[in-house]
């Protein structure tokens, strides 16, 4: 490739980004842009897939047929979200097999939140309310991300997430109108999930070195701290409606800023969970690997059958 062709392509790319237009799979793009989108979309896809585990664990022990049908539909949606995102990622020239292998080998990450256990059925409600709620906060702006296939996958996902959050909130409301013991279960669950939910937005902006470049390229649309603030502001009135206390003594409305002040999550804990020593990291990956290994004969049989039919 001559230098002028290269310069033309670079300029084309930059103009597209400046117009807030989308980059499509076969367009020229800087290698670093490609790598950044692959990393973010892969991590996002892995989160959807691993995210099935904490709740999937409760499927056989749902308290009623109604709750079981709802949870089954929700977990199935998360599998779907993972598949939309894997196929978006594959448009950048990586293969599905590679992505699965990198997840299993720990070479690509998933959201730290799924390394916490779901200990009671109240957790199914709290995960829907706070974890899917935080995911929605993160995901809505990503519908306008600069990489076309990623944005289109996010639009489908956002349409489906709203049911996830509402079913969780409704579950908690039902428990809150029950016995004292049930109300205590909800509060205990919220106490455990509040801080990990705040960590879902990633480290503070000052310690997030990739944010500036990702925003300049339109891959990310908001900073971690802005999204975290938005989530806190949304959650406070919801907690009030529910009748639970958010476990943060520093949480208070700040008239001047027009936002809530709030405390910082334990960033040492966050770093430890990301590094692999959260409560469930090993279990999550071992489970994913087992599912992959135990499914091998099915994939092989389908391949053999297709070859025979061809």
């Amino acid at each position: 490739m001559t230098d002028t062709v290269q310069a033309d392509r670079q300029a084309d790319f930059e103009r597209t980004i400046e117009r807030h237009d989308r980059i499509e799979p076969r367009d020229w793009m800087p290698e670093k842009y490609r790598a950044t989108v692959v990393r973010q979309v892969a991590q996002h896809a892995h989160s959807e897939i691993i995210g099935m585990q904490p709740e999937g664990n409760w499927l056989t022990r749902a308290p009623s047929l109604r709750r079981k049908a709802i949870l089954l539909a929700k977990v199935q949606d998360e599998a779907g979200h993972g598949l939309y995102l894997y196929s978006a990622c594959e448009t950048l020239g990586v293969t599905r097999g590679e992505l699965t292998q990198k997840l299993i080998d720990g070479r690509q990450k998933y959201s730290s939140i799924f390394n916490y256990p779901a200990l009671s059925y109240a957790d199914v409600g709290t995960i829907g309310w706070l974890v899917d709620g935080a995911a929605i906060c993160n995901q809505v702006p990503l519908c306008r991300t600069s990489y076309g296939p990623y944005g289109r996958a996010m639009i489908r996902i956002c349409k489906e997430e709203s049911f996830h959050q509402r079913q969780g909130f409704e579950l908690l409301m039902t428990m809150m109108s029950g016995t004292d013991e049930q109300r205590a279960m909800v509060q205990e669950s919220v106490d455990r999930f509040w801080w990990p939910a705040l960590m879902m937005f990633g480290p503070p902006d000052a310690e997030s070195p990739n944010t500036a470049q990702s925003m300049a390229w339109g891959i990310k649309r908001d900073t971690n701290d802005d999204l975290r603030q938005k989530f806190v502001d949304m959650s406070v009135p919801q907690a009030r409606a529910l009748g639970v206390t958010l476990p943060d003594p520093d949480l208070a409305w700040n008239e001047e800023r027009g936002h809530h002040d709030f405390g910082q999550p334990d960033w040492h804990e966050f770093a430890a969970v990301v590094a692999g020593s959260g409560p469930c990291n090993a279990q999550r990956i071992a489970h994913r690997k087992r599912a992959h290994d135990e499914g091998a004969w099915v994939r092989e049989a389908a391949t053999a059958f297709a070859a025979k039919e061809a």
Partner: protein
Amino acid sequence: MTVQPEWPLYEIFVRGKRGLNHVHVGSLHAADDEMALRHARDVYTRRNEGVSIWAVRADLIVASSPDEKDPLFAPAGDKVYRHPTFYAIPDDVPHM
């Protein structure tokens, strides 16, 4: 570690309702055509999003290249006479 050969990639198109075109919704892997349709139903139409699905092997699709977008589409750019607004017709001529 042996990486197994991947199932072929299919592009999926869904007709949202009668009277509309099939629209591209995404892609998936399947061992054969029948499995592609079944997977497409599960992945892309969990909420009545469609009344008909097309699954097309991605390697059978012929596409224009972004690099030839200028030579390919520029010739349409200067043919303004293909648009109705090119023609000045007095305002008092009805139904035109």
